[in-house]
């Protein structure tokens, strides 16, 4: 076995790669490097859009994510709420994800500075889990109060003052969709944008960002934040670094390690291929 083959054997060992990855992520999380973060135009556009919302904006917010997506989406939601809180917003929260009610409670407990400034029933309401996403979107556009008789805690929505100003599609200044899936995006386009031209703001996990991009590029959404890096950029724009900024360093480390592996993999791929051809062997994997 020559040197090239030895290197290939070392790099191909998954256990070593997993250990290195774990060491890099843990090491950076314990000793953050404070790597500078560049602000993407798309994140700045979202920040500027939210900044230009009028006083007392009416916001409809779907908490459509599970714990797997929370690392990326919860910081975005928190940063968004921190940006709008100074405008005395009226926010109708609901979820079309079965784990959504738990995620909303976690959001509320992670950002007490935001929720302590909002009075339940007057400034915000949590309508809880509503099944069948598209039907729910269609019904809520016609009137949230009529559609949901009781909130997530069993209280009647009939006497809640918030619904006097934030009830139907025309009332809302922006709809925020926090999601780990592309399905709600398409439903929102159909039921809210196409039917009522409601301004949609998407906050999505990085893995679905590219498939949501066409809707943003075509102007059917006012903007999109995709992935933890966008969350970190948003936190920086707000000058309130949070969990996304803290985590993005470790993400950088993991990315760099993967890139090093890809480069090394290619550096040994060509000599291995030549050796294989000389030996008259089959394709090198």
């Amino acid at each position, binding site marked *: 076995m020559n040197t090239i083959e030895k290197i290939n054997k070392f790099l191909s060992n998954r256990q070593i790669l997993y250990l290195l990855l774990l060491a890099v992520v843990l090491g950076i999380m314990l000793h953050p490097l404070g790597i*500078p973060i560049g602000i993407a135009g798309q994140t700045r556009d979202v920040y500027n859009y939210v900044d230009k919302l009028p006083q007392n904006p009416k916001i409809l917010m779907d908490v459509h994510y599970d714990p797997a997506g929370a690392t990326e989406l919860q910081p975005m939601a928190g940063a968004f709420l921190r940006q709008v809180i100074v405008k005395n917003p009226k926010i109708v929260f609901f979820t079309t994800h079965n784990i959504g009610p738990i995620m909303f*409670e976690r959001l509320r407990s992670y950002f007490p500075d935001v929720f302590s400034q909002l009075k339940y029933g007057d400034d915000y309401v949590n309508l809880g889990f509503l099944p069948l996403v598209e039907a729910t979107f269609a019904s809520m556009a*016609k009137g949230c109060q009529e559609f949901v008789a009781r909130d997530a805690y069993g209280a009647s929505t009939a006497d809640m003052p918030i619904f006097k100003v934030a009830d139907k599609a025309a009332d809302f200044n922006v709809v925020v969709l926090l999601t780990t899936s592309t399905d709600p995006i398409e439903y929102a386009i159909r039921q809210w944008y196409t039917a009522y031209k409601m301004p949609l703001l998407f906050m999505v996990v990085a893995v679905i*960002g590219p498939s949501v991009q066409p809707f943003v590029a075509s102007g059917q959404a006012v903007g999109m934040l995709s992935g933890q890096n966008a969350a970190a950029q948003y936190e920086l724009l707000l000058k309130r670094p949070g969990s996304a900024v803290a985590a993005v360093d470790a993400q950088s480390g993991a990315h760099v390690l*993967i890139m090093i592996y890809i480069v090394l993999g290619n550096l040994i791929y060509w000599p291995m291929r030549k050796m294989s051809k000389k030996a008259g062997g089959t394709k090198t994997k």
Partner: protein
Amino acid sequence: MSSMIRRHGPYLTITLLIVFFFITYLFTTPQPVQLFGTQLVQWASVVGYFAILVGTIDIVIFHLKPLRSRESGQWQYSAVLLIITAIGLVTGTAGVFSGAGINYQPFAWLYNAIYVPSNATVYAILVFYIASASYRAFRIKNAQAAFLVLVGFIIMFADIGVGYVIWPGFVPLGNWINTYPVAAAFRPIIIGSGLGVIITGLRALLGRDVYGR
């Protein structure tokens, strides 16, 4: 006649309902028609709640079978699932009666101490597989593969602070790739799948796609 109704009745009903939905969605209709349309959509959500109930009953029945027959290699998992379902049901119902809802301590603990970390961990484990797979997949075997690796690196550099430190231009470049080439590549896929849905829907409505024969 009865077989005709049995075969075509459901299609006819669904077709009429969909036509009705289209009319209320696309055109301005009299108030009673609009109200009826709204009611129908709201009923769909109620049906959704019942679907969850039916699903729960179905999964319980499904897992009772291997438990009763002590099916090798399965009954243990079925038992765990049924126990967890029972615990969730009991604590959830207790939460409703106590007035605390999902904030009822035992119910919230189940989620916050077991479900949330488990779900997040399973997702996080993906990074190890992605790292291992990218080492094997990103091999520059030809010009197309080289282009793929190049764009992949630009996007990765645009998404991490290290990229910004190396060259600040990575961030706008990555943004541009996402805004134009990526959107352009995904748009035909979305339009294509949309057309596919329309054609499948039309075939179903016209009775050309008959399932369960």
